[in-house]
C-alpha cells in the first residue's frame, strides 16, 4: 500500500499560527538553511493507485452518490414489484418474458445512474475543483481513467445487486401465475448480467459526456436526448428508415438485452452490448481528448 507515512514533517510547522500567535521568525532571514526535501520522484510508482484512492474517497464524500445509487436501487426493485405484482394480481400474461418484466425498472434507473456518471465529472468542472484535481494529478488521462474505473466498479456492483433483487422479487411475485423464470432457464443469467452491463455503460457514457461538455445540465440534456428524445424522434421517420436506425439506439438495445427473444428489428443481446461498449469507448475517448487538449 501507499507511502502512508505523512511526507516529511514540516520543519517547525507554523502550528502556532492556528490561533493567531505570531510566528516569531522575521521575514528577512533568507540565509537560513533550506530544510532537506527528498525529491517527490523517489515516491513509489503508484500514481494511478493514489488517483484511484482519491476518486474513491471523492465518490463517497458527497451526498449525490448516495442519493443516485439509492434512487437507482429503489426504482429497479420498486418497478419490478409493481409490474410483476400487478400482472400477477390481474392474472395477466407476461408474453414469455418474465425476466424482462421484472427488469423493466432499468429504463428509469439508467437516468439516476446517468446523473451520477455526469456528476462525477461535471461537479468538479462546475465548482472549479477540477483545477485542484489536475494540480494534484497533472496527468489528466490518469484522472479520467481513475474516475471511470471507480465509477464503473461501484455501479457494476450496485446495478448487479439491484437487478438480482429485482429479478428474484419479480419472479417470486409471478409465481402465482406459473410464468416465473428461474436462473436455470435459458438466457436468464445473460439477461441479469446484460442489464447490469447496460446500466454501467450508460453511466459511463454520462461520465464521458460530462468530460466533453463540462456542464451538468448540458451533459444530462445530451445523455437523455440520446436515450429518450431520439427514440421518439425516430418514430416520425418513414418505416424503412426507422428500421435502419432503431436497432442502434440505446433504448432498443436495452430491450434486446433484457428479452429472451429480442424484437425483430433489433440487434442480438451480445451485439447490443458490444455496440454500446463502442459508443461508450468513443465518448470516453472524446472526453479524454477534451480534458487533455483544453485548459481546465
Amino acid at each position, binding site marked *: 500500500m*501507499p507511502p*502512508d*507515512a*505523512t*511526507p*516529511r*514533517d*514540516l520543519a*517547525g*510547522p*507554523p*502550528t502556532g*499560527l*492556528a*490561533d*493567531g500567535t*505570531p*510566528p*516569531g*521568525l*522575521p*521575514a*528577512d*532571514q*533568507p540565509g*537560513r*538553511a*533550506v*530544510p532537506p*526535501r527528498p*525529491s*517527490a*520522484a523517489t*515516491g*513509489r510508482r*503508484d*500514481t494511478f493507485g*493514489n488517483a484511484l*484512492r*482519491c476518486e*474513491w*474517497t*471523492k465518490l463517497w*464524500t*458527497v*451526498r449525490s452518490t448516495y442519493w443516485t445509487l439509492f434512487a437507482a436501487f429503489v426504482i429497479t426493485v420498486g418497478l419490478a414489484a409493481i409490474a410483476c405484482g400487478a400482472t400477477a394480481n390481474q392474472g395477466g400474461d407476461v408474453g414469455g418474458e418474465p425476466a424482462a418484466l421484472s427488469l423493466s425498472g432499468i429504463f428509469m434507473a439508467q437516468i439516476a445512474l446517468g446523473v451520477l456518471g455526469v456528476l462525477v465529472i461535471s*461537479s468538479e468542472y462546475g*465548482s*472549479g*475543483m477540477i*483545477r*485542484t*484535481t*489536475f*494540480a*494534484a*494529478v*497533472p496527468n489528466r488521462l490518469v484522472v479520467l481513467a481513475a474516475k471511470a474505473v471507480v465509477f464503473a466498479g461501484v455501479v457494476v456492483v450496485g446495478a448487479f445487486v439491484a437487478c438480482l433483487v429485482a429479478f428474484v422479487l419479480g419472479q417470486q411475485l409471478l409465481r402465482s401465475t406459473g410464468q416465473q423464470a428461474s436462473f436455470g432457464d435459458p438466457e436468464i443469467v445473460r439477461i441479469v448480467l446484460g442489464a447490469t452491463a447496460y446500466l454501467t455503460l450508460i453511466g459511463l457514457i454520462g461520465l464521458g459526456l460530462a468530460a466533453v461538455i463540462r456542464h451538468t445540465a448540458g451533459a444530462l440534456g445530451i445523455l437523455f436526448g440520446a436515450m429518450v428524445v431520439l427514440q421518439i424522434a425516430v418514430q416520425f421517420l418513414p418505416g424503412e428508415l426507422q428500421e435502419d436506425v432503431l436497432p442502434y439506439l440505446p433504448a432498443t438495445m436495452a430491450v434486446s438485452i433484457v428479452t429472451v427473444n429480442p424484437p425483430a428489428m433489433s440487434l442480438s443481446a451480445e451485439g447490443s452490448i458490444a455496440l454500446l461498449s463502442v459508443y461508450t469507448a468513443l465518448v470516453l475517448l472524446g472526453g479524454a481528448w477534451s480534458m487533455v487538449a483544453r*485548459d*481546465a
Partner: protein
Amino acid sequence: MIEVDRLTKRYGSTVAVDDLSFQVLPGRVTGFLGPNGAGKSTTMRAVVGLDLPTMGEVRVNGRSYASIRRPLCEVGALLDASAVHGGRSASSHLLCIARSNGIGPSRVNTVLEMVGLATVARRRIRTFSLGMLQRLGVATALLGNPGVLLFDEPVNGLDPEGIWWIRALMKQLAAEGRTVLVSSHLMSEMALTADHLVVIGRGRLVTDASVTDLLSRSSRNRVRVRSPQAGQLSALLTQDRADVRVQPGPDSALEVLGMDAPAVGELAAAHGVVLHELSTQQASLEEAFMDLTRDSVDYRTGLDPLQATSPNASPGTPTTVGSRP
C-alpha cells in the same frame, strides 16, 4: 525555485502573457504584482500545469510540473479558494486531495490545525465564509509540505486578523527556506509582506526588483522644504538646473523633484536662505507601482487616479526598467 521562461499564453486573439521571463528564488517572499488582467493568474496556472503555454515553459525546481510524481509535495498552490465542492466537509475535501498524492490522513488534521479550521473540520464547505475558504485553500496548499508555494490574492475576503495571519504565515514559510510567490493587485499589501517584487503589465515584465530598489527609483520621490523665503529659494533651485522642478506643496511648503535633501540644504545655506523644514518624501510603494504600470492598465478610466487624488503629483513620465516602448 520557479523559473518562468519566455512564457506566452494566448486565448484566441487575446494575449494574456507575452514572452514573460522571471525567476522566483527561495528564502524570500516574492510579490507578483500587476493591475487586473495583467496575466498574474494565467502565469500561476501555467506554473501548476493548468494552462498549457502557447510558447515557452515554466520549471519548478528545474523540472516541468507534469513530470513531478507527487506534485503536492513539491508545489502547493492557492489559486481560487472558492473552487471546491461545497457538499464535502473540510476534512473530506482535504482527505481526497491527500490521497491523490499518497499523503497520510493524519496530515489533514495537522494542516486544519495550522490554518485554524480544526473546529469546523466536519462542516460542509458550502457553509464557509470567504475567509474560511481562504484558510481552507491555504491548508490545501500546505498539505504536501511543499518547498514551493503559490498564493493568488490570498488576502481576499479575510478579516483583519486573517490578513495579519496570512502575512505572518508567508513570511514564516519564506524564512524556512521555501519559495513563496504571492500575487496581488494591491501594492500596499505587498509593501507589508514582500521582499522582492515581480511586476507585470499586459502580460509583460515591467520590473523585477527588490522593494527597496523600487522605492528609491521612483520618480515620485521628492524633497519637502519650507522657508519664509520661498520665492528666493525656488528661483535658486531652478536656476541653471533644467532637471529640477519645484512645485507648491501643502502647508505653503515647496516640493522639489530631481534633487536630494542634502543638496537643497547646502544650496540654501550657501545663499543664507532660512529653512523651517527639510525632509525627504519617499514615494509610497503604491505610487511607485502606479508609475510602473501606468502604461499597462487594461481597464483604465480617463482619470489618472494619482492626479485625481493628489494635485501635486508629478506629471512627468516615469523612467522604468524594462517597460514597454
